[in-house]
């Protein structure tokens, strides 16, 4: 009867459609738990601290950061790439699995997409505040002007970045919202308060759920998702080109685009894992987020971790194989040994070694282990970006210019601020937006929960 075959139980408990609605929406229909307020407070404080740090930066100048003549990019770009990476997986997850018709995505995709949007927002902040003259940021757009007209440099990866990231932000937000329409309609229809109903009425764009709408909706979703899939790859490839088009040892690498994309998926999946575990535990949504889901992410992470490991190995091998003194120095004397050895080995350990624990089923089935490792992976991915940005810049071609880089409190606060922004965003999301795609859950409910019957 159903055209698509599925594997495993995706939704446990043999639920009725009404139960699904009930349980998913419980998080926002019931009173918010205490921890929500607590977390909200913590993240808000972080966010405000970040805003203060950003305000100081704009007021006084980039001098407040630890950057210098050599390491002109520091934490800001590290964090930017890190957030973009996290922001990637959300959509990658949702879209790749949509295109591949993997039905187990349904419990997770909404949260993953939300995560994407907030992460990309956080990421987008950095290139902005990173500018020396943010008030002239509009120069970066090729708009008709009275300067000749003078356009922009279309060869600059940074311009590609602007185009790609704004497209990506728009596309992923649109995709996320599009997916949300039917669920917002559900919320609307269930809301008792008039104001809430009005708000959700506007938000749900007048969704009803007629078959014609569903058809158009599905086609649109597949098209948007379908073109967004290459976009996901393109965006992080372009971010990689920020580095790869340069001449610096450790940057000037053709492996970068795929390596960055895989890295992004890696950190993004890890972040999805973190988030899903939190949701699963906090809202007792065990029936929707099953061990099967987590297990699947765990398997993917193991695989991606292997790719990461071999990427690191490839980089090092090519550095040696090229025989270029600068390359050799950067990898062997600056990263593997030397001043930045800690960051390098932290990266390798967190990204390539620890995730190998997922080979063990026990680890994959342990919520705690999954949670810890997912956090470790994101720490490792941060170190990876640190490695790329800082080590290459601090010691490059002319030893006379070599210099170390140390972040200042302002930079740390800015970073915390973006974590705060992300946290606040996620908290608002789980409180006000159906955090699982109910319509899709319902779609897969019957075929997947009854398979064992």
């Amino acid at each position: 009867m159903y055209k698509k075959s599925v594997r495993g139980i995706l939704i446990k408990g043999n639920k009725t459609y009404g139960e699904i609605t009930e349980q998913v929406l419980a998080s926002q229909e019931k009173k918010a738990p205490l921890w929500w307020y607590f977390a909200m407070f913590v993240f808000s404080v972080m966010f405000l601290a970040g805003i203060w740090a950003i305000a100081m930066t704009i007021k006084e100048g980039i001098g407040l950061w630890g950057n210098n003549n050599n390491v002109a990019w520091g934490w800001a770009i590290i964090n930017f790439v890190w957030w973009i990476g996290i922001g990637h997986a959300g959509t990658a997850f949702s879209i790749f699995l949509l295109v591949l018709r993997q039905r187990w995505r349904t419990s997770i995709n909404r949260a993953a997409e939300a995560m994407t949007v907030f992460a990309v927002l956080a990421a987008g902040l950095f290139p902005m505040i990173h500018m020396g003259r943010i008030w002239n940021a509009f120069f970066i757009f090729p708009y008709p002007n009275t300067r000749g007209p003078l356009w922009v440099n279309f060869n600059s990866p940074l311009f590609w970045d602007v185009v790609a990231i704004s497209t990506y932000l728009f596309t992923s937000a649109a995709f996320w919202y599009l997916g949300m329409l039917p669920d917002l309609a559900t919320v609307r229809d269930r809301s008792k308060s008039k104001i809430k109903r009005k708000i959700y009425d506007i938000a749900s764009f007048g969704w009803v759920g007629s078959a014609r709408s569903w058809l158009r909706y599905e086609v649109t979703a597949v098209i948007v998702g379908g073109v967004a899939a290459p976009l996901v790859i393109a965006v992080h490839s372009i971010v990689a080109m920020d580095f790869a088009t340069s001449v610096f040892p450790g940057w000037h690498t053709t492996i970068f685009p795929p390596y960055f994309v895989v890295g992004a998926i890696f950190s993004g999946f890890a972040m999805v894992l973190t988030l899903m575990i939190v949701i699963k535990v906090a809202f007792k949504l065990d029936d929707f987020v099953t061990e099967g889901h987590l297990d699947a992410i765990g398997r993917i992470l193991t695989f991606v971790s292997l790719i990461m490991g071999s990427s690191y190995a490839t980089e090092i091998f090519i550095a040696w194989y090229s025989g270029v003194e600068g390359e050799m120095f950067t990898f062997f004397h600056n990263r593997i040994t030397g001043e930045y050895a800690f960051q390098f080995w932290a990266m390798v350990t967190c990204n390539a070694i620890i995730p190998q624990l997922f080979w063990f089923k026990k680890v994959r089935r342990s919520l705690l282990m999954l949670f810890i490792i997912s956090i470790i992976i994101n720490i490792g991915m941060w170190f990876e970006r640190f490695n790329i940005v800082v080590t290459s810049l601090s010691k490059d071609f002319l030893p006379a210019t070599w210099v170390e880089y140390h972040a200042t409190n302002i930079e740390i606060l800015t970073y915390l601020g973006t974590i705060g922004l992300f946290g606040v965003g996620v908290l608002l999301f789980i409180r006000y937006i159906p955090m699982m795609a109910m319509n899709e859950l319902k779609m897969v409910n019957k075929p997947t929960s009854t398979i064992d019957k």
Partner: protein
Amino acid sequence: MKKYWKSTEELSEMVQQNSPVRTGEQEPEFSVEGLDEAEIKQGLKSNRRDFLKMLGFSVGFASLATSCETPVRKAIPYLTKPEEVTPGIANHYASTYFDGHDYASLVVKVREGRPIKIEGNELSSITQGGTSARIQASVLSLYDGNRQQFPLKNGEHSDYSTIDKDVKTKLGEIAAKGGKTVILSSTVISPSTKQLFEAFKEKYPGSEVVYYDAISYSAMKKANKETFGKKTLPAYHFDNAEIIVGFNCDFLGTWLSPIEFSAQYAKTRDLTNGNKKMSKHYQFESYLSLTGSNADVRYPIKPSEEKTVLLNLYNYIAGKSSMDILKAGKSPVDISKLADELMSHPSKSLIVSGTNDVSIQVLVNGINFLLANLGGTLEFERNLQIKNGCDHAFANLVNEMNEGKVDALIMYNVNPGYDYVDAEKFINGMKKTGLTVSLSSKNDETAKHANYVCPDNHYLESWNDAEPYNNLYSIAQPTIHNIFDTRQAQESLMAWAGIEGNYHDFIQKYWEENLFGKQSEYLLFTDFWNNSVQKGIFETDAETIECPLFDFDYFNRAGADFTKVKAGGDIELVLYESIAIGPGIMANNPWLQELPDPMSKAVWDNYVAVSPRFAKDKGWEQEDVVKVNASIELPILIQPGQPYGTVSIALGYGRTDCGKVGNGIGKNAFGLGETNGDLRSYSNLSATIEKTGETYPLATTQTHHDMKGREIVKETTIAEYAMNQAAGNESHKLTMDKSETMYPEYEFPGAHWGLAVDFNKCTGCNACVVGCQAENNVAVIGKEEVKNRRIMHWIRIDRYFSTETDEINSPVVSENPEVLHQPVMCQQCDNAPCENVCPVAAVLHTKEGLNAMVYNRCIGTRYCMNNCPYRVRRFNWYRYLDNDKFDYNFNDDISKMVLNPDVVVRERGVNEKCTFCVQRIQEKKLVAKDENRPLRDGEIIPACVQACPTKALTFGDTNLKGSELNKKFEDQRAYGLLEDLHTVPSVQYLTKVRNKDAGHQGEKHHS
């Protein structure tokens, strides 16, 4: 271009002109007098165009609107425009710099009545158009708001008529009672001033003049007197020397006339004109000096060993010349080979020593005489007159003052209260002197104890003349009206000596009476005078005299004491002048304070330099604070090249009364010198150094010192070069052969600018750095920011140490590495990596091959900085203009007058870099167009090229066939830095050739 003008009065009007300094963004232009109040009000009131602001738009638009607000700009013309001033056109006036220490003949660039740049005077046979870092920076000292701005009487504001009356009365009384009046002056090379002193002495009988130099060269003169019978310094001709041996003598950096010597020295090292030969330079020294860093063979020795080496050298040569030999201990260095080499180049070698010790100078004289160098590489026909101080006379004076025997003391251009070995004694003596008058331009360490201070003009505000060598004259003329209520010292003296008129007339009279007759070109004195002022110099032949003979009898007269060598203690201390600060006269000059030391690359501090091995043995680490001779506390700096067992400290720091910038920077090391009651000595043979346990951060602009085996500075030896001109530069051809591109290449229809740097001539003196800073309005950022490694200099000198071994504890690595200096400025790459990445197209290539940086387009992504392999891009991390946190020279209206109005002052958040002085290129292009002719080769001279005393830099058009630049580019030594990256740089470096035997490195075996 050089013009002269008649009187300073005309300039008084100049300040009326609204002379714009270009600020980075839409900030109101800054007029010389600053914005007056009415103007500011007007500016605020004007909301003509602020359409969006009126509507109360969103924050973004509001900020946009406010940032774009255009205030009413006033254009205030002159009341009467001085004839020679055209707003927007620079005038150049010849002038002369002499501060009692350095001499240079100059051309001063003046815009709208403001001197803004110092350039060398090509007409001078002495400095030959060269300058030094300090002289380049001297223009900023003109605008030093910490100069004494009005006369002082007992520390209170006073006026000249009161002071003149007081001083004249008192001097009259003293003269009447037969008291003693002393004019204490630094060396005076102005013949007019000397005559003025005579007139003063005539007016007040019983007065005398005592000359005092902060850094004493007394022993040389004494030795010359004793052995050659000439109480003068000779003229040196390094350009005639094939072998140069220096003993603790920084003749390229600080010794006597370094600009002149650098130029001479560089001539002997020039290989571009087909030479296959160059001079060989040996250096024995007790600290790593600029000169030592350029030496082909360098021997690190302790100060106590210098005499032993010289004795041995003398003995060897004397022995071969069958003369009597002297008693000598064993030399720590084998000098036989050096001595043989010297003897095989008769009259083509030169031995110099910078030690203020008579016996050492006698030995140097003896060796030079035995090698027949007199008349060849040094001669007494011309006498270098820029060091005339007499230690003996000064020591006597201080004693007499303390005994109360001096009644009046007039101090001109001296600061013994700071730079005398026993400053306290001098100050005490001053207190016992009835009348003390200071003619210092600052209320400095000495002047603040004086009864009267009549602040002297800056040299750019004064008329003066100079005679650095006999019969080589130059003139200084004022280029700006007095900024403050100051009076030229000479005029003060004239007032007290009762001479009518001003000093200008006095000089003119002197010239008419004494110099006019020495020439026959001009029949009228006014013509002669005008012409001399215009050219800045007047040179006539010196009388020929017989070459003096060395008086070997001196050794008998001196007796056994002569050969006695004072043993050194565990630690020996050397005091030296740093390249940037020198004796500390311009310690309040932020450009100099921020100028990296050529060796240590440290800024804003002095320190105790120790060799790595010695530091390790003593348990000292970088930045550990130590107490030297129980008097001053300074941080340790690990300095390869410092001999084992010695430490060195720079003089000139630790000023307490020089102004906001220099006060309290470093510690005063003059007090560590020694005096034996006669000669002052700047090395202390047994110093004590104790660790205090504290640390003190030092700011350096370079922390990695070796090239990691990369081909950054290429070098070879003369022997290899003679066989293969591309020696050491083999990879250049390989790289060029493999150079491929997939893109079509751009055409440069007109000129394509390029710059060549000859490593053989570059001594690393840093003059270009300050020259560039002055020309291009480069900000000073202070120690903290330098420590954050954000120095703004557009041209920097990278200094590398190289050795054949990399064993860190070997004596060679620790005490005697070879040194390479590499000036790095923007390479103006044709395939610039920085251009590709700028998202807003603020970095582009022009049709003349320049890498243009458009400050007003820049949004500060710093991507270009990241992508520049040469690291020459600079970012404005803060707002450096009008920011109290950077209270150097961008923060007050007076010092902002030094800004070059043709160059924008960059805003916060904007990237900047060297542009090959595009403003100068444009200026000369326009001149050529106006004159309806093509540009001449060498017509355009960027600031760095101009400042260079050795002509190591050549600028020109690579598209012009046969240009000087192309000759260098086609030289087989030429290569581009990091050319394998295919950046196609427009700067080429010429491989360094060392005149050393392969594998031989001056080495000394210490246990």
